């Protein structure tokens, strides 16, 4: 089921969900349903749909529990709108991300219908939809229906200054960015952006999406630097404790 008019109606959520979060989620759904740089709106919504399917995927559960995921044979059901490698990557990123490797990444971006740019945009769509859904699940709220895709053609935009650096995919660093992309690092104020931010920059709109949702769900990059100010009901140490715990539960070294 999809919807032309996302609601994110939290009036009966039972919790006082801040308006900044609701407004961000409405923007999330508008971003999701339009064409990106490398995927159409319909394909982006299909990525979101697969992200949700992975949550309840029996094959993924079996693989995640196995000593080696390769020991469990099988393939996910094909999606008419997505390359097979995209479907496999989505399921892996949702359910077994702590065992990813550069060899796995190279296999995905080299597969039919995929590329580095398509992988990074896919990851951007996946993580932002997943974060919206995770907030709903954590509060026992029903998931918002996915939006009806918009028409239009992907722009095919790849920043000319993007190059291989510290992460598997090429990234765009501020010193190599065209003026039109400098906004993605605006809040970094001349500092090298954190690797987790630049990681998505092969598709600059991914970073714009990340900056927006990070500020709504957590703190803006500027607020992150204001260690002594309290911006939320929870104190900064309490927020950091939760962040660290989630990272540890996911065995995320970063």
């Amino acid at each position: 089921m999809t919807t032309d008019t996302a609601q994110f109606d939290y009036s009966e959520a039972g919790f006082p969900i801040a308006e900044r979060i609701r407004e961000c989620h409405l923007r999330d759904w508008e971003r999701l349903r339009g064409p990106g740089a490398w995927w159409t709106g319909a394909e982006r919504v299909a990525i979101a749909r697969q992200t949700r399917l992975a949550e309840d995927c029996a094959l993924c559960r079996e693989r995640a529990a196995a000593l080696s995921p390769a020991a469990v044979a099988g393939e996910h059901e094909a999606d008419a709108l997505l390359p097979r490698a995209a479907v496999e990557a989505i399921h892996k990123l949702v359910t077994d991300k702590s065992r990813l490797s550069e060899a796995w990444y190279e296999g995905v971006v080299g597969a039919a219908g995929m590329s580095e740019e398509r992988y990074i945009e896919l990851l951007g769509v996946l993580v932002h939809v997943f974060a919206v859904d995770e907030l709903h699940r954590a509060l026992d709220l029903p998931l918002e229906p996915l939006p009806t895709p918009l028409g239009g053609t992907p722009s095919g935009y790849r920043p000319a200054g993007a190059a291989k650096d510290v992460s598997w995919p090429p990234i765009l660093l501020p010193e190599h960015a065209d003026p039109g992309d400098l906004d993605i690092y605006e809040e970094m104020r001349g500092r090298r952006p954190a690797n987790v931010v630049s990681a998505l920059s092969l598709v600059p709109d991914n970073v714009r999406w990340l900056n927006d949702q990070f500020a709504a769900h957590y703190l803006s990059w500027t607020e992150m630097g204001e260690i002594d100010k309290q911006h939320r009901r929870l104190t900064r140490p309490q927020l950091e404790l939760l962040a660290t715990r989630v990272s540890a539960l996911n065995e995320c070294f970063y």
Partner: protein
Amino acid sequence: MQGTTDDSVDVGVPFADVLMAYADAAVRRDGDLAERRAAVESALGAEAVVDAAATVANYQRMVRIADGCGIPLDEVTEQASAEWRESLGVNEYYSALNTYGEEVAAPA
């Protein structure tokens, strides 16, 4: 810091136990989520529950970006966290390979 991976250690943050229990239930999808959410609400209020849920959601996203792109630790973090990473066992995580390469043994 030790308390974020070892529940027997007091982390020195008010209501750390209820917050970590809630994060555990949300990430692990276990059946205690409602009970643990109620504990956060009882201890810290409804607005804090939303903060906690949004923070969990935020970092569920960030770990997938980090692991999905194979990023190493930022240099400043790598230096600042060197002492406690070893004691927490964090250096044993598979994704430590992205920072230290083959120096860290991969799981079987």
